[in-house]
């Protein structure tokens, strides 16, 4: 709702320009990302699809400020995150990451986990932060699990809590690195609906890495298909399926067409990646 009215001045526009990242761990240069450019509008759900090990996570780490980039620049809402003279972006709560394997702190309850950001940033007292955390978790359907430790809840609940932990910081961008990777199809479906619901409420920009093509089309406004290593933008597919979307969307003709289009592009890269792998092994 909010998303439709304020689309023009939406915050969280990411501009990735000619980014290159070269790793040099053992003297052998490995080019993970090569001259990769993409524009992500504020409030857009941008899905990144590409073969395993192609450098998608490297790109995400660059945006988050976990790694430096070798060349090029990344801007957020016109401000330089990293680029010439500043290879590594500052880590900041305006860009929150949800990790592949989950990174809720096992020694804190779900509520304490979510309250962590506002508490360490000292924008709220810890009592206020806990209050707010409890409220947000309840909104996400986790009201009965506030006092549970991450080890006590299912992976689906943990992942939802982790997204809440990111959102409590009011980030401009949510960076998701295959968050639903190891989940069964049914849980995934519920996760998708919950994420879309959250998105419709907050309108946060989402940068989402995945291998699951149906997931990419179902969630995304745009699907960016990237090449095998080094990572480059190969093709962008716009998903013009109106929101809100429901699981029935997935059986529509339009959805199938898009899936075919994305699949063709990805398959080509997957074959290339496989052959490259064979060469490396030989």
């Amino acid at each position, binding site marked *: 709702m909010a998303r439709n009215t304020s689309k023009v001045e939406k915050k969280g526009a990411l501009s990735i320009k000619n980014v290159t990242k070269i790793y040099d761990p053992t003297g052998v240069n490995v080019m993970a990302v090569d001259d990769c450019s993409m524009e992500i509008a504020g409030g857009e759900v941008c899905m990144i699809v590409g073969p395993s090990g192609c450098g998608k996570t490297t790109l995400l780490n660059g945006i988050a*400020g976990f790694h430096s980039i070798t060349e090029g620049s990344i801007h957020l809402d016109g401000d330089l995150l990293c680029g010439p003279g500043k290879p590594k972006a500052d*880590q*900041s709560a305006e*860009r*929150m990451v949800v990790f592949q394997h989950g*990174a809720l*702190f096992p*020694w804190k309850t779900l509520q304490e986990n979510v309250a*962590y950001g506002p508490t*360490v940033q000292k924008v709220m007292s810890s009592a206020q932060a806990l209050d707010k955390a409890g409220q947000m978790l309840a909104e996400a359907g986790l009201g009965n699990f506030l006092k549970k430790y991450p080890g006590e809840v299912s992976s689906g609940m943990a992942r939802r809590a982790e997204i809440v932990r990111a959102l409590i910081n009011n980030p401009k961008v949510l960076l998701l690195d295959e968050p639903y990777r190891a989940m069964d199809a049914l849980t995934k479906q519920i996760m998708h609906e919950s994420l879309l619901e959250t998105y419709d409420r907050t309108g946060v920009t989402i940068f989402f890495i995945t291998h699951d093509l149906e997931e990419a089309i179902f969630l995304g406004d745009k699907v960016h298909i990237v090449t095998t290593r080094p990572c480059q933008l190969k093709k962008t597919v716009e998903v013009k399926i109106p929101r809100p979307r429901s699981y029935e969307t997935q059986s529509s003709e339009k959805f199938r067409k898009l899936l075919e289009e994305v699949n063709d592009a990805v398959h080509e890269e997957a074959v290339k990646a496989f052959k490259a792998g064979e060469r490396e092994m030989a």
Partner: protein
Amino acid sequence: MTNFLQKLLNNTTTRRGIGAIIIFVILWHIGSQLDEWTGYDLLGIGLVPPPGDVFAAFLEVIPLHGYWMSWVASFGRVITGFLVAMIIGIPFGLLLAVNRYFRGVFFPPFEILRPIPPLAWVPASLIFWPTNEMSIAFVTFLGAFFTIVINVLGGARSIDISYLRAAQSMGASQLDLFWKIVLPGTLPSIFTGAAVGMGITWEVVLAAEMISGGGTQGGGGLGFFIWNSYMGGSLEQIVVGMISIGIAGYLSSSAIRKTGYYFMPWRRLF
């Protein structure tokens, strides 16, 4: 109280444990009597004192002041050595883990000293420290120290980097990272190190007490108690001493378990 006992007896695990101990005692008795029953000398098994005699010897020493002083002396040494090892070892291990320069300077000498068995330190420390008591305490400390440090270091270094990244992007300072992430993340390893270290401490204390003769004032510790029984030729009392150490060790490790349980509520589910 009766209620508590009833609950304890209703627990399958407890019942199994008690049953196992009873079976063990029966086997022990059979083993010790085998020579007499069969009339053959079976591999010297006849030298084992039967559990009944050991129990009788137990009843004999229980009223003795000296026996309990041995407990106090050994426990005192174990706790002193262990606590000092924890107090120095935990911060030392954490510093090794988080500070590159500290690790560069202190890790190499640490690694050279670590393989030296604590008992190899006994002669040198008897000469170096002014009193017997201090040398035993020192050797005990060494026994636990290296184990604790290596566990803390390993534990802190193996914390998932995602936790650190997540905390940092949420705005955690270096100090927050240390207190809120590194320390709780290392706690399980700290308690593993403590449990293993405690076991080594008992080993070392006993050996050191036997070697040093235990000192002159009343109780020379459980190690000296065993040594004394050996010199006095009381086989039953030797076994009494051994079982006492078993019980003491069990009490120490369950104390560590309980403490761990208290400090790590999130581990209670496992």
